[in-house]
């Protein structure tokens, strides 16, 4: 019977180290529990972000809608050629006769003008020059009853115009 070769201690040592080590069922369960918990956290986080994104889109859409929505009414330009005036405003039923609501701007040729959006219908108005002088619009018809009080003008906005 042939003699067996001697065992190299290093080979035996390595064989020992190579012996299997099983990961315990408990460790496996803990890994999967941690993974499931992490996945659930991620899903919650994703839902939160999704909700925030939807909210942001809604807010943005509302903002855009408000911002780009065409203003109500028809643009009507008021103008009064009074080069020597220091201040001109237009008052009327559309601004509740408020002498501070709608000032006009002086242009280079001395005409004062502004644009107001008016709803369809007839509107009575007047200019107030330098705070105390009421002036009817020379380019518009006088409003009924102007003969008996302050000279008011009349502008009529037809429905469907912009």
């Amino acid at each position: 019977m042939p003699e067996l070769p001697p065992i190299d201690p290093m080979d035996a040592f390595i064989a020992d180290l190579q012996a299997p080590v099983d990961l315990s069922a408990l460790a496996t369960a803990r890994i999967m529990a941690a993974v499931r918990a992490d996945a659930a956290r991620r899903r919650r986080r994703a839902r939160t972000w999704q909700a925030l994104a939807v909210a942001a889109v809604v807010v943005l859409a509302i903002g855009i809608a408000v911002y780009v929505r065409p203003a109500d009414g028809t643009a009507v330009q008021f103008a009064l050629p009074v080069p020597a005036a220091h201040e001109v405003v237009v008052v009327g039923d559309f601004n509740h006769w408020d002498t501070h609501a709608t000032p006009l701007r002086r242009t280079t040729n001395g005409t004062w003008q502004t644009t107001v959006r008016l709803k369809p219908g007839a509107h009575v108005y007047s200019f107030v020059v330098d705070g105390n002088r009421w002036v009817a619009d020379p380019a518009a018809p006088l409003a009924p009853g102007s003969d008996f009080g302050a000279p008011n003008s009349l502008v009529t906005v037809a429905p469907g115009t912009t």
Partner: protein
Amino acid sequence: MTDDGAPGSPQVVASDAETIARVVAGDTEAFSILVDRYGNRAARYATRMLGDRAEAEEAVQDTFVRAYRALSRCADRERFGHWLFSILINRCRTAGARSGRRARTFVRDETALVAAAAPDAFDGVAWREEIAHALARLEMSQREAFLLKHVEQLSYEEMAAITGAGISALKMRVKRATDQLRMLLHEAYSA
């Protein structure tokens, strides 16, 4: 780089890449396939490296959870095993540095005792304890290189990819570890 499967009827086994794709797509339970596939091997490395079974299991658990969280960043999904080991190695380095437990780098188990083939005249348990001390006395980088080369049987190229160390450095570490272990084993035999 996979654990050996149990014998049985042939069945189609999902590749690592296919399994990872399922997990990333939301099938969390598919991750257990990867745990089953690599868990034992990771446990063996961590146990040999850290010398403490409980600490090793903690390191393996942490490694798998970290891997899960970073799974979408696994560049080469077919080499998930190597990627996982790179995480495990770092985790073991941290644990090893933290614990400072260098005296218990070997854990006894009955299977290994049978496979140890210790010399007849030498008491197996005592011999194994000597070996445990020998392994523990290696520098951590040498122990790491020795285990990857001779226990996990990786090539130097694979070891370099996993550890980030150069091939020459790894060869040197393995050689020094082997030389020191031979010397320590010789002392153990001679005692």
